[in-house]
């Protein structure tokens, strides 16, 4: 655009010089034409400029770290008219790591649309926010420009590497020899059961009629089941991107392993900034992805407080908790 403006000024200077040095009326005509022409250009370019629209096209949802994906930018005109020049400023920011990249894409014409492809930076886990910061459209001469509306930002989740699901027997296999029993919700048959007085609301079928007749009071047979150990995966949401990548790789592998083993588990970390401990329950891939969206959408500082130094606690969980702290080197301990 600057070049076009400079070119126009030079042309105007040439027209002025022609006007001064050539005495005939034609030089005056050319000077007036040179002064008027940019406005004429603006007038005939306005339909094309105003009809210009920009849309983003990013891979839906999530991509794996290190995969070669591209995001698309499409510039099209509602009325199929070309524009002199269009300049789109794009930025791609990894919300978690804070890495930002900006790029400017330019084009001209575009009556049948213009497509730009940009490679996504999937080198680190995180949530990539791919947005258009500014769209400028020029008239056919490239002198005047107007801004156009920017589309909504697109988000792409960069997932950890698809490592094989880790063996989680160490977390699940060591059950207590003397498990703590707890009433089974909904009752049902079972070897272990407990007897207790009837409470309003107990189903009639759970009443032990034989015993109740003997004690002249309603006695309920409550089936028991062993209380399972809660599995807790913890990690630290701070540090360099490479460190976080390895920790997330492991967390993802372990979590998928537990999901495959149909073992719901908790994931816990200290939220940067507020320093609150956040806990999420994961029982399927959907919940894992939702967790990853939440984690990767949080800016991770270089330093922070490790959850390793904090005592294990999960709200609403009374029983034993088996914990695995994810580290980049995979030396997280289970306890």
């Amino acid at each position, binding site marked *: 655009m600057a070049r*076009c403006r400079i070119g126009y000024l030079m042309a105007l200077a040439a027209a002025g*010089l022609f*006007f*001064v*040095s*050539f*005495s*005939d*009326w*034609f030089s*005056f*005509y*050319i000077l*007036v*034409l040179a002064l*008027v*022409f940019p406005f*004429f*250009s603006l007038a*005939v370019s306005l339909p*094309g400029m105003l009809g210009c629209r920009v849309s983003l096209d990013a891979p839906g949802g999530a991509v794996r770290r290190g995969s070669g994906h591209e995001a698309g930018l499409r510039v099209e005109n509602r*009325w*199929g*008219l*070309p*524009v*002199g*020049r269009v300049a789109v400023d794009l930025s791609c920011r990894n919300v978690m790591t804070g890495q930002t990249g900006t790029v400017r*894409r*330019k*084009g*001209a*014409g*575009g*009556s*049948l649309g*213009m*497509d*730009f492809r940009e490679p996504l930076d999937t080198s680190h886990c995180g949530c990539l926010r791919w947005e258009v910061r500014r769209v400028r459209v*020029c008239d*056919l*001469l*490239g002198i005047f420009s107007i801004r156009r509306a920017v589309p909504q930002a697109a988000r792409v989740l960069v997932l950890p590497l698809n490592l094989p699901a880790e063996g989680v027997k160490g977390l699940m296999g060591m059950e207590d020899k003397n498990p703590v029993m707890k009433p089974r919700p909904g009752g049902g048959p079972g070897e272990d059961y407990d007897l207790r007085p009837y409470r309003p609301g107990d189903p009639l079928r759970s009443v032990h009629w034989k015993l109740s007749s003997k004690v002249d009071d309603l006695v309920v047979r409550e089936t028991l089941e062993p209380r399972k150990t809660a599995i807790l995966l913890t990690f630290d949401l701070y540090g360099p991107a490479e460190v976080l990548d390895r920790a997330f790789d492991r967390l993802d592998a372990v979590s998928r392993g537990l999901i495959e083993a149909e073992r719901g588990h908790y994931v816990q970390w200290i939220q940067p900034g507020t320093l609150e401990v956040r806990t999420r329950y994961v029982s399927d891939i959907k919940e894992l992805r939702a967790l990853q969206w939440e984690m990767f959408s949080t800016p991770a500082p270089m330093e922070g407080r490790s959850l390793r130094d904090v005592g294990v606690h999960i709200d609403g969980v009374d029983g034993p908790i088996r914990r695995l702290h994810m580290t980049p080197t995979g030396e997280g301990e289970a306890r």
Partner: protein
Amino acid sequence: MNHVNYEKLGVQRRSVVLLADGLMLFLGVYGSIFCLVTAFQLPVDGGKLTLTCLAAAAAALIVFSVPRLGVRLLLVLAALAALAGVVVWEYGQLRVGALVCARQVVATFGWSLGTSAELDISAWVGTLSFLREVQTSTLLCQVFAGAMGLWLGWLFVRVRSFWLTFWGSFPLLLVPLSVTITPAWTPLLLLVLFWGMGVLTRLPNKRDPYGAAKTTLCVLPLAAALLAGLMVLLPGEGYQRSDQIERLRLQLTDWVTMAGREMVSGDGNLGLGGGSTEVDLTKAGPLNYDGSTALRVEADTTGHIYLRGLSAAVYTGEGWEQLPDEAYEELKSGWMRQEMNLDALTSSQFQPDAARYVDVPVPGIGDYQPINFPALADRSTHPQVNAKRYIIENLAGSTAVVYTPYQLLTTPERMTGAEFIGDAYLARGTGVWKHVLYARDEANPLSGAVLTGEDAEAEQNYRLFVREHYLQVPEDLQETLGSLLAESGIGGTVRSQEEPIHISEFDKGTIYYGSSLTVRVNITAEERLELARQVAQFLAGLTEYDPDTPLTPAGEDFVSYFLTESCRGYCMHYASAAALMLRTLGVPARYVSGYVADTVAGERVDVPDYNAHAWVEVYCDGYGWQSVEVTPGFNGDFPWERDPDETAPPSPSASATPTPDPSPTPSAPQPTHSANQPGKAKADWSWLWWLTVPAALLLLAVALVLRRKLAARSRGRRFADEDANRAVIEMYVYMERLLAFAPGRKADERAEELAKKAKFSQHILTGEEREFVRAQTEKLARETDLSQKWYQRLVLRYLYGLY
């Protein structure tokens, strides 16, 4: 980033691009060719040439639109071969046509430049009838149009570069414009339209040729309307430029001319090629000339004349400088002069308190110009003698001065394009390179010419100014010059007392200069000129004329080194030395530079650069400045220098009554010319109507295509309405229109039912229902189209825009 290449477009879009390109090519070829034709008034058959331009544009479009490189190259070669074939086959005709066109071009150039230049082609082709001229020049222009079509076709259609296209066609317009010839408006505006559309579609043209083509087709009528509208709003009749713009133009022309001259001026032209009014003697090295013409002189007299450029008063040792402006202000308005209190000094009674010097007011000379004094003196003494006219054009002389003949009669109020700068020179006016001057060439101080009346009073005051400023010699040079002159015996100088007594006693005519010289000041003009001759002879004997004299070493006084060390030099050395020696002798003198010319009455002569020269002017009381030649080998032709027996040059016939000063013709700048200059052959312009018919048809075609496109787009938008009910209603309305042209057909029943439901019920149609109605609409449109005859289809498509 991807962009739509031409080859990737579909057939329909490609045809749009072809249409736009063809239109633009025609504008470019027609505009270029006819700008030349109308500017130089070439005798052509306009109709044939227009068709040729059309054919050339079409051919170029086809050739350069072929996608395959091999085929394209073959077509280009075939086209070039065809052109070459035409040239070879019709060489005789083309030769005649070229001569006819050349004759017209030369005549137009000559007319524009104010000359009578003509090219007589009868020696080559004999006498040609007008018809033959038209035939041959038309053929030449047709070949040129073909070549132009190929050239622009390649630049615009293939390379798709606006700037290359512009620069490829602009020179054709530049040729007539360079001599202020404007072509006819129609081709000129078409060419401007071509460039205007080209620059508008410049940015998208390469990457989006389809978009650029659409823009061209849509905007072209608007741009044409803009150009026509400007013509209406800015009428050409009665157009007059403001004086400021005209002055700016002259200044610009001046600056360009001076810059150009400075670039090409040689080293040995006595510093006269530049714009300085001072003489730099440090650059006086070996002379170097290239023989180019410095001045062009047309005079009413025959003889050897001196054309003075500028004179300088102040010698610095390294050059000659002008007097300060304050000195000339005083000369004009008056000044106070210090004189010896002679009354006190010569009184018989001793007056110890009397002042040695007293201030005496001297009236100024007002508007009198000392350069005019000799002519005024001669006119008052010989009123029957007519002045001679001189036309002097400065081609490569100093850009700051006007070169004038001696005894200049033209006074400031009659001078145009020049300004008197004190008594030194005439400064050239901006943009004026030619001057008409009047001078009394026969005037001389020995003819008894004297000023009278007010002229004489002014001269007497000026005389005092001269004595104050034109007797100055640097102190460190006085001893050298005094010794030389004393040894020379010039003017009978004798040694006097030792004590340096500086007494100025004009009445007694004696002045003491230093301790070795006594000279007389108050001497007659004849005596002064005799002293000048003696000084010249002395210098000729002392030194040697050498045009290859090297530069004076740095730090050395120019004149002193010449007289005492090198003893060789050329006119600059002799003039400088003589002026200072004459001043030492008490003769007011000054350095002058200019040119010498040998004129022939009534003829124009070119004065080459090697005629640059320097000489001396000596002041003669009661007369004015008189030039003196002091360089050995240069013989002047002044009356006082001729032998008494030598026949004087023929004098002009005297008129019975004194001829008043003729009004000098102002040397105004050359007028510019419009396209309405008289031409040799008057071409027939009635063929212009040929252009309007195809243009109108083309515009109509474009309008119809656009109408169809817009209708389809509007229809598509309505059918894609977010409100499904409204969209279906629109579809049904469209079906009704189609059925009007397909009698016997009916709309699909379900589609009709759905349309009624959309119109009258609350039900919102589903997507499926909408698509069904759309499919039925398209089916009906196809069937209706196919059922029509070809002309009916065209009408329905392009006039009604139905599909």
